[in-house]
């Protein structure tokens, strides 16, 4: 007999969102859906080692959770009321055919723009991702009780303000999808470059979860270019994870990474997604452009083989879509490789990013390359003062200390 514990873990990963989503639709209540799904999995943990794994674990879990929900509502005398509410909340005026999936409804509910961003992230990880409250609290270094309150408050708002469990109106859809992708990207980034000095520098559990959720959204919206772009961006970033932090816990810059340690399988998958988007011939959004930039980087076997003119051209496209200072800072980093540090520095100096560590780190590097050690040291000091990630701080300190003394 295979290890039932492993089977339950796998089924949890694969079926959690579907069980919660089905219950949310039937009962119109996220609390009941979440609690009864959790109880159904707890029952599986008790019963499956004794009775064996049922032939269709997902159906077994949904049926078990459904029965538990009915029992509870009957005990509380609320069955009719919940049934009415469910019918009302699921009265989506414009059903959207192929993407009208219960789990997608759940994603849209958890990422609703009327909720604060941190609530959206926590809810998505709990309700769609199936992470426990202690797991989410750990990932964001928040007290368990505080994280529990955050999730409870968000669920209370969903209920009181009647945030629907539904696919958005057609004309709201692009903005709402962008909102969902922003949540997924923030989860990924928190895992990839943890912002807190007390935390591990890379949290692979969060990056893996973000990729898994993005795959789920992509399965439901296969035609959306930005969903594909975000998945490709995550895969091509994740592919470099092993090479990104040294054995001594220091950040390794892209140009200095051991490219042999990159994950070729993830790169191949990411490149295939980028190629498919190019072939689609539609104007790319920001995630597709960022993915394409990462595809150029991961295409070069050696940093010297990087096609910097291509990178700068892609950043030009991105600046066109989003002329924010951070995008222009990243463009300037590529410009330094193409036109030299002097040109790049002139572009960087004008940017209003005094409070952003990467701004000072970029200036420090450009000044170092121009032989302006004193100014470079000052910029490194400013970057070190602002950086939160431990691996990044270690990297900046080493670079600063390598500067030639004046």
């Amino acid at each position: 007999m295979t290890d039932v514990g492993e089977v339950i873990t796998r089924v949890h990963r694969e079926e959690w969102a579907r069980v919660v989503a089905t219950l949310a639709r039937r009962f119109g209540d996220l609390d009941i859906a979440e609690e009864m799904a959790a109880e159904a999995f707890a029952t599986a943990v008790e019963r499956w080692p004794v009775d064996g794994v049922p032939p269709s674990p997902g159906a077994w879990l949904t049926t078990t959770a459904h029965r538990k929900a009915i029992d509870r509502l009957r005990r509380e005398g609320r069955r009719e009321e919940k049934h009415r509410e469910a019918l009302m909340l699921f009265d989506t005026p414009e059903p959207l055919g192929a993407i009208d999936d219960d789990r997608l409804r759940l994603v849209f509910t958890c990422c609703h723009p009327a909720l604060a961003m941190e609530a959206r992230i926590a809810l998505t990880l709990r309700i769609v991702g199936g992470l426990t409250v202690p797991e989410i609290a750990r990932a964001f270094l928040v007290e368990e009780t505080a994280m529990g309150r955050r999730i409870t408050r968000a669920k209370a708002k969903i209920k009181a303000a009647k945030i629907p469990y539904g696919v958005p109106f057609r004309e709201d859809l692009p903005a709402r999808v962008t909102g969902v992708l922003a949540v997924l990207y923030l989860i990924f980034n928190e895992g990839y470059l943890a912002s807190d000095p007390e935390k591990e520098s890379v949290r692979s559990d969060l990056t893996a979860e973000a990729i898994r959720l993005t795959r789920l959204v992509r399965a439901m919206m296969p035609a959306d270019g930005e969903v594909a772009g975000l998945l490709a961006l995550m895969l091509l970033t994740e592919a470099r994870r092993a090479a990104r932090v040294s054995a001594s816990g220091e950040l390794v810059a892209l140009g200095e990474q051991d490219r042999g340690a990159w994950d070729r399988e993830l790169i191949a998958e990411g490149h295939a997604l980028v190629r498919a988007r190019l072939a689609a011939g539609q104007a790319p959004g920001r995630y597709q452009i960022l993915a394409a930039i990462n595809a150029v980087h991961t295409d070069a076997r050696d940093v010297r083989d990087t096609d910097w003119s291509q990178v700068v051209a892609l950043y030009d496209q991105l600046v066109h879509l989003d002329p924010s200072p951070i995008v222009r800072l990243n463009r300037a980093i590529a410009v330094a490789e193409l036109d030299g540090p002097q040109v790049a520095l002139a572009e960087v100096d004008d940017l209003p990013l005094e409070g952003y560590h990467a701004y000072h780190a970029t200036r420090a590097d450009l000044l170092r390359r121009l032989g302006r050690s004193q100014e470079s040291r000052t910029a490194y000091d400013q970057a070190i003062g602002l950086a939160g990630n431990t691996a990044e701080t270690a990297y900046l300190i080493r670079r600063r200390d390598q500067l030639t003394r004046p």
Partner: protein
Amino acid sequence: MAQYLISVLFDTTEFATAEEMAAIDAFNEQLKADGHWVFAGGLASPSTATVVDGRDGEPVFTDGPYLESKEHIAGFWIIEAPHLDVALRLAALGSKNCNRRVELRPFLGE
């Protein structure tokens, strides 16, 4: 159906212009035609308010608003909508038509 309060927020005591009033009237007609209308009204300036405390015995009247704040409620709509997405959409239209920010808040359900 749920009911929501759309409060109009504003930071001076200037009233709506004729143009804004015309846009608000047109929006109100639309709310009625679509079955969302419950009630709406504009409020006189906060300095005309009286705080009343009638909890024990003789009521106490205090001149002026309960809260002195930079922004105040200049008017409101009460609307009916099946869920928040519809209410948000109506609130956005209300904000556009009266040319001010609004706050959307659900009434307590039954």
